[in-house]
Structure formats: C-alpha cells, structure tokens
C-alpha cells in the first residue's frame, strides 16, 4: 500500500493535547512563571489566579465545589492520596478495605501494600461483562470497613460501573467511597453530587490535557491527611510547588470537555457502533469483551480465537494502526525477565482463560478519529487475522476437528 498512514486508536492509554489546551499553557512556562505561593508580587498573584481559574473549570466539569478539587501529579498519585490519605486521617475507621479485581495497578498494588501493613482487603469479583454487583459490595461491608474504591470505567474492557448504586450502599453504611475516574472523567458526564461519591480521581491526559497533572475531588474538601510532608499547597493536603502550566492545561481541557462532551460522545458512539458491527461481520472468531451497553463511547475490546494479541498488535502497527493489547506478552516488553509477564488480571477476571485471553485487543477511539479511519481498520483486519490464523497450530487443530476452545 505504501502509505504512511498513522491511525491512533489507543486513547485509553493517552490522548493528544488539544491545540487550544497547549496554546493556553504556553504563557505559563516563561512569561507567567511565578510561584503561586509568592502571594505578594504580581507574578505570584497571576499564578494564583491561574490556579483558581483551573480549579473552577475542573469543579464545573464534575459539578463539585471549587475547594473540593486538589491538584496532583497524575491519576496514580490521586489514587494513592485518595486511599492512603483517607486512612491516615481516619485511623479509627477500621482496618478493612474493599476494591474490585479489575482495578488499576495504582489501586491493586496499593491494596497489597496495605495488606502488608495489617489491613484486610476484600477483592470483589466481577460478572462477565465486567460489572461489579452493588449487592456484592453490600455483602462485603463489615463493621470495620474503612473504605471502598472501584474504577468508574475500566480502560481495558470499557465497562462503566454502577457507581451511583455503590455510592448509596457506601453512604448507608457510612463507608468512604472513592471512584477511580482516570479514564472516565472528561469523556462521559460525571456529576459527583448526583453520584454521591466521596472522592474521585481525575487524569488530564485522558481527555486532551497534558501528562503529569491530575486531580482528586474530595467531598467537603478536607477529610484526608497529606501523604507528602512539605508546605501548605493545595489546602495543606498536597505539598509541592504547583505545576502551573499543567494545571492551566487541565483546566482548559476540562472546560472544553464540559462544552463539547455531547458532540464528542455522539461522534464516538457512531464510530464505536460502526467498528463493532464491522468486526462482527468480518471476523469469524471474534469475542467482544466488557459490557455491551454500559461502556465508554468509542471503546471496543475483543479477543480472537486461535491468535495471539501481541502479534496482532504488531501487524496492525506496521499497517499504521496503533491499539492496545491485554496480552501478557505485550504487557511489559521492557521488563527485566519473564516475571514481568502476566496475563491481564482484567481479562482473567471476566472469565477469559489465561491461555486464551492473549488475543485481546482494545481499540479506544478519540474525538478526532474519523469514519474513514474505522473503515481502514475494518479493511485490513480480515487479511491480518487470516495471516495469523494460517500460522496458528491451534487453528490447524481446529480444522482437524480438535478445537482447543470447545471443551
């Protein structure tokens, strides 16, 4: 084909910074470089004003109060501050926490660490579509449950959780409820008041803002302790000189998301439907993962019987399409040894056997993707899949009547 096409379908990993966001950030590197803590001089005041404005824009996006937003360095930090900060401030709340088995590593590994420190962790199972059952949450709550944390939407399978129902249960039992909104905020409507959650993780680079900046919504604004020792920034809950350009970028990205969200969602749902339908028609051995309806717009995830995910990803990349795989073999290519390879915990959680979930692919589209790009992917998929099927001993077995997938 010889074209230098580059199609980016990995928006769950990161999104490009919107040019309007970038434009707004530029002055804060050189002209308006002041430290917001320098309250007395003009540059400091201007930096402070920028912070206030951004806080307002983020608050508007999630319908919180302005002083309920704390800026952090990323979603991982927000997840750590949300959980650890709360536990630190509330040592008497109990030693039990509840998470789900399809959380991000910043929650899973934190829970492991908390276990080492004497906390008990209940890890909720999810149903086939990746949904957490609110009733299971209620059943897991104990007298000494300090907090619940679940992801609002899952990046790998796109499933959106019944957050409002879980929040009602948490509230009923007086348990602090944190939702990891890293890939949801800015992409789907989120109203913290309506949802009734206590804390929410926000990530700028997942909705056309820059990397290196995140936020944490905290209901009431002051129920956590800082996890860094330092100065008095961010209401004393997150010390360290603020990343002013990043915060300005997050603010503008939030404002654009507030304004453009309905249009973006409509566009992405259209692309998602087109891809889903096309793949279903073209690819014989496809199995879609995640929830068919309760899912992120423009997010399609699936695995293909008899073929492996990383090889599929590599071939698509050569043809100019960048997507993600839940394949164990592509999970950490830069790792030191095999210990760094593990089948996706999300896919095994939704019942895909480890040896078969290696064909998994996540296509996450963004606001600037086009129908033509979806059509291109649909055009090249059958040929790529066919090539891998021809190489596969599993497929050869299937043709001989020994299908490894029908047990």
């Amino acid at each position: 084909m010889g074209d230098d096409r580059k199609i980016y379908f990995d928006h769950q990993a990161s999104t490009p910074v919107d040019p309007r966001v970038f434009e707004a950030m530029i002055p804060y590197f050189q002209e308006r470089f002041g430290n917001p803590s320098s309250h007395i001089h003009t540059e400091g005041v201007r930096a402070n004003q920028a912070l206030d404005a951004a806080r307002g824009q983020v608050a508007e996006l999630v319908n919180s109060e302005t002083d309920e937003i704390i800026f952090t360095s990323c979603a991982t930090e927000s997840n750590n501050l949300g959980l650890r900060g709360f536990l630190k401030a509330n040592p008497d709340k109990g030693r039990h926490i509840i998470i789900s088995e399809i959380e991000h590593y910043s929650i899973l590994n934190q829970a492991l660490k908390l276990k080492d420190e004497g906390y008990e962790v209940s890890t909720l199972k999810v149903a086939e579509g990746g949904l957490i059952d609110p009733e299971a949450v209620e059943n897991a709550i104990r007298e000494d449950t300090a907090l619940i944390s679940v992801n609002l939407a899952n990046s790998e399978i796109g499933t959106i959780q019944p957050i409002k129902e879980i929040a009602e249960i948490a509230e009923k039992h007086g348990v602090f409820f944190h939702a990891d909104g890293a890939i949801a905020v800015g992409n789907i409507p989120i109203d913290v008041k309506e949802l009734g959650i206590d804390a929410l993780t926000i990530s700028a680079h997942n909705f056309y803002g820059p990397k290196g900046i995140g936020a944490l919504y905290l209901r009431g604004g002051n129920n956590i302790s800082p996890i860094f020792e330092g100065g008095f920034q961010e209401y004393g809950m997150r010390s360290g000189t603020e990343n002013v350009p990043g915060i300005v970028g997050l603010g503008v990205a939030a404002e654009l998301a507030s304004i453009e969200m309905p249009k973006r969602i409509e566009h992405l749902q259209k692309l998602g439907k087109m891809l889903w339908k096309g793949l279903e028609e073209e690819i014989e051995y496809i199995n879609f993962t995640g929830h068919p309806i309760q899912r992120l717009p423009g997010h399609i995830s699936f695995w293909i019987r008899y073929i492996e995910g990383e090889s599929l990803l590599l071939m698509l990349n050569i043809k100019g399409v960048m997507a993600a795989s839940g394949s164990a073999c592509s999970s950490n290519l830069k790792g030191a040894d095999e210990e760094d390879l593990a089948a996706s915990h999300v896919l095994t959680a939704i019942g895909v056997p480890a040896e078969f979930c290696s064909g998994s692919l996540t296509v996450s589209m963004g606001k600037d993707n086009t129908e033509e790009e979806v059509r291109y992917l649909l055009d090249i998929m059958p040929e790529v899949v066919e090539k891998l099927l021809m190489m596969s001993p599993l497929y050869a077995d299937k043709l001989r009547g020994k299908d490894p997938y029908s047990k």
Partner: protein
Amino acid sequence: MTDKAFPYSEKVMDHFMNPRNMGEIDDANAIGDVGNPACGDMMRLYLKIEEDKIVDAKFKTFGCGAAIATSSMLTELLKGISLEEARAISNKAVAEALDGLPPVKIHCSVMAEEALAAALKDYEARSGGNGSN
C-alpha cells in the same frame, strides 16, 4: 522500525512479517509440539529427516512477535544440517541469529530450543522404537 525505543530488532520484525518455512510437512518424520499456555505461546515444529540430515523444516506458532520470529529463524538454521549439528543449536544461537531479543522474550527462544529437542526425541522414538507410525 529502526527506532531504538522499539523493543524488537529489524531482523525479528523481518522474520515476524515474512516468516520463513511457515506451514506443515505432510510426511514429517519428527514433530515437536511445545507450549507455554500461561503466556499464550505454542510452537509446533515439523522436520523431514533423511539419513541423519534435516532436509526440510517447517513450523506453526501461536504467539507473540518474538515467538513467531524465533520459530522462523530456527527452521532456517535447521534446514540442510545434520542431526549432530542440530543437537548443538541452543536458544542463545537462535536469539543471536535474530540480533537479540528483549530480556522478557528470552523464553520464546527457549521454546524454540524445546521444540527442537521434542522433535529430535520424537524422531528417535519413531526410528528406534516401532519404526514408522
């Protein structure tokens, strides 16, 4: 693709995109079937051996880019050599012939070595034991 940040060498990518000797040998007299289901890798090596010489080698592999490339390279190395020489082929030799593999992918070359060992064992069983199947 020559980008240093990219984990695979150009040779790996070449063998992945244009695998040599992919397929099956209908009258193979040595088959090595090995797999690592936890990682999702599976390799089947077919050899045609005549008078202690490997006259043909083919493979089918389910796996990542490195698994496919090592399978392809292994068959290239095996074609036309003696059984004696084949026994001396190590996973390291396969990885080196591909200009190296990322550390996490070394197991793919180990799988190639195992497939070869399994095929040679199969050959011995066939020729030593009951003759042809």
